[in-house]
């Protein structure tokens, strides 16, 4: 049978960095292909080549749909050829209605450019029914939960009648019920002959849903397995390229004294003024401890810790949340206050809020610790260079000199620069938000090693992560956020993936 999609020898370079090298895969009509790989393995890049967001002239290799070679010069061309993408990060227009979002860019008209609104609302109601949402199609998207938004994005793609549907971590924002609904929809599409590519870190989902699995690692094709013939361990070994035990290092020390205690913290909703995103969250962090913070996408993990770090927890207008550092209540008004209390926070997106692209490596490293290398406001150049040099050495930073632009570094080394910046401020409480996102396996292992080294030295670490294996392996305890509240706290011994997912979906597990 002619494959619905055949990608052959796709190679993509960014300057000297090879993101994809000679990757091939095929999907047959009526098949769901799992696409697996660590962050940075090249899954997203490969899918960008397919979706037209990387133009055909910018990568080497060939893409054929139903045996016919295609060269997309835009995402629009890919959409016209029947390729639909569903991303982890929902991209809906918050102030447009549900119906408008579903039909955006291809509103049914009655000639003369007039929109056929009855048809729009009829279609939107059908789409909502398909994904099991009972909502008014005229309601704006802003008021919906993240998971409802994700279901609408799915509905939008499905009613366009794609030939090839790509789903990138679609369930990371969904509750268990919604995920089941999605799986039913996908089975339905498969029966109708649609070819699906399903990208996920969750092995149980991949094995339950897919017919075959293709694994990528470091931009290269590793293997394609039939699900029936392969075990989970084999796929994971293919992804990681080494034993998992070697990747994660964490020997749990005895937790010491309390470093940080949050009580009743509220967090404002980012898009709705009348709502709270997180309500009454409490947690405790002790010296030498790594506490994982888990939740579905949109649960407010990053927002909770940011609110504490930048002092915005004090501006919710309701209950007054309290923060205790080393047992004493403190008031944090700004990040500067947090830093003075020896708190550091590595944010999720290093480009947006981690490094300053116009500054060189040294200046990025010393940014949060300038007063340590300055006297009376005057920077001591020698002290600054040696501080940067020490940290770069400690984290094995690979760079063409510390005066080089931070933009010239690979993702993993950029992350090391941002980590160095925070370590330079000599924190006792280190908040790490997705610290290994988009970096290669080698750098990942080094960051894990550093984390346990820091914990052994008596720092307390809060680890926010969407990567279940990472969270399970590194955390001494996991606090789960769901439905705007802390749903439970799990000790290392009792943590399982199922328990965490259940709690995150709002079905309380062990009480906190």
């Amino acid at each position, binding site marked *: 049978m002619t494959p619905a999609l055949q990608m052959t020898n796709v190679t993509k370079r960014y300057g000297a960095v090879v993101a994809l090298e000679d990757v091939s895969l095929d999907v047959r009509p009526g098949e769901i292909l799992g696409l697996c790989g660590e962050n940075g393995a090249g899954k997203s890049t490969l899918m960008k080549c397919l979706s037209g967001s990387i133009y055909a002239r910018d990568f080497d290799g060939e893409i054929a749909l139903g045996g016919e070679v295609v060269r997309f010069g835009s995402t629009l061309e890919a959409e016209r050829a029947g390729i639909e993408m569903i991303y982890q990060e929902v991209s809906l227009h918050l102030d447009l209605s549900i119906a408008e979002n579903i039909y955006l860019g291809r509103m049914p008209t009655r000639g003369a450019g007039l929109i056929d609104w009855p048809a729009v609302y009829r279609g939107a109601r059908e789409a909502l029914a398909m994904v099991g949402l009972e909502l008014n199609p005229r309601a704006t998207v802003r008021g919906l939960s993240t998971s409802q938004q994700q279901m609408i994005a799915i509905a939008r793609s499905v009613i366009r009648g794609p030939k090839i549907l790509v789903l990138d971590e679609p369930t990371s924002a969904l509750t268990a019920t919604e995920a089941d609904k999605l799986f039913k929809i996908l089975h339905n599409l498969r029966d109708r002959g649609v070819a699906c590519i399903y990208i996920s870190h969750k092995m149980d989902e991949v094995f339950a849903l897919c017919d075959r699995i293709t694994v990528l690692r470091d931009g290269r094709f590793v293997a394609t397995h039939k699900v029936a013939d392969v075990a989970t361990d084999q796929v994971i070994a293919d992804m990681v390229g080494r034993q998992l035990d070697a990747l994660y290092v964490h020997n749990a020390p005895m937790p010491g004294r309390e470093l940080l205690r949050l009580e009743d913290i509220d967090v404002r909703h980012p898009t709705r003024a009348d709502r709270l995103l997180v309500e009454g969250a409490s947690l405790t962090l002790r010296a030498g401890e790594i506490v994982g913070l888990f939740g579905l996408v949109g649960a407010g993990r990053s927002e909770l810790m940011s609110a504490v770090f930048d002092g915005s927890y004090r501006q919710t207008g309701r209950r007054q949340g309290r923060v205790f550092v080393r047992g004493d209540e403190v008031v944090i008004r700004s990040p500067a206050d947090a830093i003075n209390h020896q708190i550091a926070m590595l944010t999720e997106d290093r480009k947006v*809020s981690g490094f300053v692209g116009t*500054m060189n490596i040294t200046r990025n490293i010393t940014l949060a610790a300038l007063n340590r290398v300055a006297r009376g*406001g005057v920077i001591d150049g020698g002290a600054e260079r040696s501080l940067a040099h020490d940290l*770069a050495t400690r984290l*094995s930073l690979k*760079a063409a*000199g510390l005066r080089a632009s931070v933009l010239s570094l690979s993702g993993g080394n950029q992350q090391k620069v941002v980590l160095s910046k925070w370590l330079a401020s000599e924190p006792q409480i280190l908040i790490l938000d997705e610290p290994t996102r988009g970096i290669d396996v080698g750098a990942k292992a080094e960051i894990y090693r550093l984390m346990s080294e820091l914990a052994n030295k008596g720092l307390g670490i809060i680890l926010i992560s969407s990567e279940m294996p990472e969270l399970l392996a590194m955390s001494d305890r996991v606090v789960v956020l769901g439905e705007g509240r802390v749903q439970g706290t799990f000790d290392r011994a009792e943590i399982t993936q199922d328990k965490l997912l259940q709690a995150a979906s709002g079905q309380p597990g062990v009480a906190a």
Partner: protein
Amino acid sequence: MAQTEAAAGEPRGAKAALSRIFKAEELGILLVLIGLVVIVALIKPVFVSQANLINILRAAAFPFIIAIAMTYVFIGGQFDLSVGPIVALGGVASGMMVIHGGVPVPLAVIGTLILGAGIGFTSGFLVAVFAIPALIVTLGMLYAVRGVVLILTKGQPVYPLPPEFTIMGQGTLGPLPYPVVIGIVLAIFAHLVLKHTTYGRNVFAMGGNKETARLAGVRITRLTISVFMLTGMAAALAGMLSAARFSSATSNAGTGMELLVIASVIIGGTSLFGGAGSILGTAIGTLMMTVIKNAMVILRIDVYWQDLVVGIVIIAAVGLDQLRRRRVGL
């Protein structure tokens, strides 16, 4: 460790030094300036006479003093359109204090500087606290301050300024007029602060990535307000010096100064998007603008052509610089 070797092995030697000069931010525009001076000097040798060179420096001094502060504003990722009327207000306010209020000159100077800082504080406060775009705030301030000047003066010049006042603009140190000396001293100071203090570093960080800077503990609100206070003070100072130079403060002084200053800073290679720039570049940029105008007078080019030529030169200078940057991979 690979990095350690690399860090120790920064390029050295004559060849490396040469390559660093070629990569220097300010080089492209400096070459254009030198080329311009050489060509005009070949056509009209009087262009490089001492008298004319002093003329050029003195004309450049007033916008330069403001451009120094504007460099901070731009590097910090902000924008200030309001300096022209503050120049007029600086002259008028100090002149009125001295002539009508009998205030001693030093006090009047200090008072006027505080007034300029106050206007900058207001702009900065509106930008930083109420998150109104700097372009809008300072555009409003441009009109408002000019209005205040007209209300104060009813359009009449403020004169005669006493000699203790006019000496600020008319006195000389050796061959150099005081405004030039003041400009040079301020430039050196501003350069050192920008390169070697935490304040300067934080301005770069804020302009390069405000969110990263904020999370690294930089007090964004204060810092934003402070850079606007710098331009306010600098404009007020330039206004006093210019009034002193002409022995009279006029309500239309500083008209168009905001654009001249902004053009000078941009020609000097300071980024409109923040995070990059230098006082040296601004010095070259300001000289460039002044040299062009002066050269056209010396070459007896019709005065009506001046603005057209300036416009072309601005685009050409920045365009050439962009080309060079792309070629050396900056």
